[in-house]
């Protein structure tokens, strides 16, 4: 299929390019100009960008098919312009053996939708006791190793895991949360949790764990990506660690970029998230750090939850929110509020995550894989159960009027979504 995308505003963060131009696609790759196309897409008034890359999207397979399936969530990904995604290992069973990873990749490949990059479990059954066969898992296609949302209780094991991963150059993606300090907590330990009578998680549950991680990175040289920063003080620790040139990167989720603990309102269980939504001051620091590059990229932390998991008192509700379809509109909202050029905004969901993932994607240069998102940055998007394609309708943004709709999504040169 040879496709000619005409008159779009081509924004390629990797090449610092932002200009109206034509883009040609042939043999699954971005091509040089050609005369005869099988299909012409009129992109006048639309932005032609690299497909988005989401470093945290739970597809719920295997084990939680009643919450979501590969079919439903990869459809949601494409509707959101997400062409590559990394899925955490906290499935049931967890992605701790090569057979499971292989099966997941085959299933995803057979659907020929978005590209799926599994993250393997760092420890067996995510129990934090014994290391997984990282080498075999990497051969099966794991791009990194993680504990998902399950905290590492034993620092000795964490140290060994990082030593082992560093030996072979495997990347480790971890959330920074002290297991003991976070135990039983469901909300940011502050005024709001006090008012609502919800058990709190103090902000230092994050900084203490991050301090430990930074020391271990310094000691082992492991390449660590810190997932879902939530506090201003963690941002400062990360700033200093990066100034020291430690091999650390980090991300923030769309929810923590836009919401704070006051959004819990009257016990909104959609705001039950891991890590918890923190204070307005934290939110502001995260938004600034993402603009400054202290935080490398933005993720959806997509976690579809069924109604039974959410129609509960908020402390008992299952954590997580659906997000794949909100990644673009919420990135745009953030970029607009901070008055960033569009290329800088999009870099956080294209070139930057591509760099962390270590894949050849996230650009529109000739010869690159033709993974593209063609979107209207101003088209309104009303977030509702009806407009979301994900099987999970759980998001604190329900009812929001956002801007940014994906019109075409291309993966490997095929038009896989038109909206």
């Amino acid at each position, binding site marked *: 299929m040879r496709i000619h995308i005409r008159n779009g505003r081509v924004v390629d963060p990797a090449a610092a390019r932002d200009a109206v131009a034509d883009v040609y696609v042939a043999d699954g790759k971005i091509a040089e100009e050609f005369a005869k196309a099988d299909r012409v897409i009129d992109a006048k008034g639309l932005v032609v960008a690299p497909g988005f890359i989401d470093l945290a999207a739970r597809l719920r397979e295997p084990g939680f098919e009643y919450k979501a399936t590969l079919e439903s969530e990869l459809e949601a990904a494409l509707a959101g312009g997400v062409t590559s995604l990394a899925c955490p290992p906290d499935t049931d069973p967890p992605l701790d053996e090569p057979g499971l990873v292989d099966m997941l990749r085959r299933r995803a490949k057979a659907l020929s939708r978005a590209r799926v990059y599994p993250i393997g479990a760092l420890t067996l059954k995510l129990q934090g006791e014994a290391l997984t066969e990282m080498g075999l898992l990497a051969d099966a296609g794991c791009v990194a190793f993680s504990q998902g949302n399950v905290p590492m209780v034993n620092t000795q094991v964490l140290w060994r895991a990082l030593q082992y991963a560093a030996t072979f150059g495997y990347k480790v993606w971890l959330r920074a949360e002290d297991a003991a300090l976070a135990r039983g907590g469901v909300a940011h*330990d*502050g*005024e709001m*949790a*006090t*008012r*609502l*009578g*919800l*058990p*709190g998680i*103090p902000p230092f549950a994050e900084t203490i764990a991050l301090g430990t991680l930074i020391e271990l990175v310094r000691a082992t040289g492991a390449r660590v990506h810190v997932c879902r920063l939530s506090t201003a003080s963690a941002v400062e620790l990360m700033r200093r660690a990066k100034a020291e040139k430690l091999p650390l990167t980090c991300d923030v989720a769309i929810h923590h970029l836009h919401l704070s603990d*006051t959004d819990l*309102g*009257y*016990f909104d*269980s959609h705001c039950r998230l891991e890590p918890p939504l923190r204070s307005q001051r934290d939110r502001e620091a995260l938004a600034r750090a993402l603009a400054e590059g202290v935080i490398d990229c933005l993720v959806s932390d997509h976690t579809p939850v069924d109604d*039974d998991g959410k*129609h*509960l*008192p*908020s*402390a*008992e509700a299952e954590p997580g929110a659906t997000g794949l379809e909100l990644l673009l509109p919420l990135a745009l909202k953030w970029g607009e509020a901070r008055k960033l050029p569009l290329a800088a905004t999009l870099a956080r969901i294209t070139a930057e995550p591509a760099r962390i993932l270590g894949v050849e994607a996230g650009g529109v240069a000739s010869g690159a894989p033709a993974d593209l998102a063609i979107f209207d940055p101003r088209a309104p998007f009303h977030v509702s159960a009806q407009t979301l394609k994900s099987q999970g309708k759980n998001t604190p943004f329900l009812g929001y009027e956002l801007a940014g709709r994906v019109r075409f999504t291309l993966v490997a040169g095929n038009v896989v979504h038109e909206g």
Partner: protein
Amino acid sequence: MQRNPQLNASGELQHLLSIEGLPREILLQILDTAESFVGVTEREVKKVPLLRGKSVFNLFFEPSTRTRTTFEIAAKRLSADVINLNIAVSSATKGESLLDTVANLSAMQADIFVVRHASSGAPFLIARQVKPHEHVVNAGDGRHAHPTQGLLDLFTIRHYKKSFTGLTVAIVGDILHSRVARSLIHGLTTLGVPEVRVIGPQTLLPAGVEALGVRVFHDMREGLRGADVIVMLRLQNERMRGALLPSAQEFFKHYGLTEDKLSAAHPDAIVMHPGPMNRGVEIDSTVADGPHSVILPQVTFGIAVRMAVMSIVAGN
């Protein structure tokens, strides 16, 4: 933020879920209505027909004897039919969800649900689910709120002190886990009490409690100085030893109300306790049974206050 879910479109009390966010007028309406019911509870025929033909479902997802009983008495004195459901040992253990339980009971024509639940916010979830003519009264949810207890505390304070302005109220003990303390603090600040104090060790004070409008004291004598009202909180058995406190004895040494500590307060101070009391842990028997104690009148007023709340929500 959404509209306060306890008020209807005309700003009247549809459900009683929390004292926080209720306007002063509604609090005073409840207290004044309760005043009129105190007489009823002292008559020989202790019934008024206000809720005749209505059904009150006591939904207790967490065991309670005292609160459930006072709600039951209050509903019966209003001539309602009362159905007690001890869900802690029925549906919940059979795996039925909270909302399914409520939907089933709703199909049995309930008018008022009195709900006690171990999870903060559970009554809000139920209030979102019930039909427009049904009312939810929170009888205690997790650490969040116990509004009828807060109201009966306010009623007791007004009864003995006549007015809220000019008072110093000290709340002592486990503030962290206390829904009673939270409800009372909101009530006191809404009704214009100029000085509300909380007294306890750091381990039993929630983060940012000052933001609720209270002054924090760790030293009990200092915190009681000049207090007109002292509210002692119950210390749960399971919290008496562990990472929060070393022992009940040590808690008593620092925060148990003795005659000696009481002498720091105003000479006319009243001593309150939501019950059930741990004598010798948070309060000394000589104080609990002494002239300053209004602990038993609190229980009597509790019935009038619950009658007031149920009659008001049912009338809106």
